């Protein structure tokens, strides 16, 4: 299993450009999450999905959109990039069943700079 994969690893965008951050998992997990990580701020939840066709907002959803057409893929869309969206983006997934450790499995991250 590849686990959670993210592409691209790095990207530089100009203000106002748009892009899609890709996330895929091959573990047949129901739940998927998108976080952003800024220095000294921990991880903030952007959007999440409990299954194909179902998405919901997290703590910091403004400026982002998501879709979940399959169990495996959960892309994150930035429509009008702004410097405030410069961050490291992590995708994570977890199985649907209740588990004692509530572990989420993280991808390697996408480092995005908006200039």
């Amino acid at each position, binding site marked *: 299993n590849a686990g959670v994969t993210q592409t691209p690893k790095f990207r530089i965008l100009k203000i106002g450009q748009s892009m899609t951050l890709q996330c895929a998992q091959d573990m047949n997990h129901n739940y998927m999450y998108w976080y952003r990580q800024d220095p*000294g701020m921990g991880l903030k939840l952007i959007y999440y999905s409990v299954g194909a066709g179902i998405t919901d907002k997290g703590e910091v959803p403004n400026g982002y959109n998501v879709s979940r057409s399959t169990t495996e893929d959960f892309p994150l869309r930035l429509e009008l990039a702004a410097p405030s969206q410069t961050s490291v983006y*992590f995708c994570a997934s977890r199985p649907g069943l209740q588990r004692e450790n509530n*572990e989420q499995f993280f991808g390697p991250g996408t480092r995005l700079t908006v200039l």
Partner: protein
Amino acid sequence: QKEVEQDPGPLSVPEGAIVSLNCTYSNSAFQYFMWYRQYSRKGPELLMYTYSSGNKEDGRFTAQVDKSSKYISLFIRDSQPSDSATYLCAMSLLSNDYKLSFGAGTTVTVRA
């Protein structure tokens, strides 16, 4: 007030020292408590977890949860240079779609 507070450090210790990390939280309904380890330019990985109050030991690592004080701790004994990483505390409710609330992360450097 942030939901989860964690001192970002950084923390620098000599090899073999005990590393002590902690977080405080405001939501008394949290039931799952976790510590993730994140190496530089990598994604976080689950290191320890505790359900509700109590202590848990795994090799050189000990996690403690004190729900009455809303305080959790992670201790690393006999620290090694390979323990140099950022340690993030995380916690969640029993349900609520298993969403995690993270602390800011503490960066630890173990000097050889």
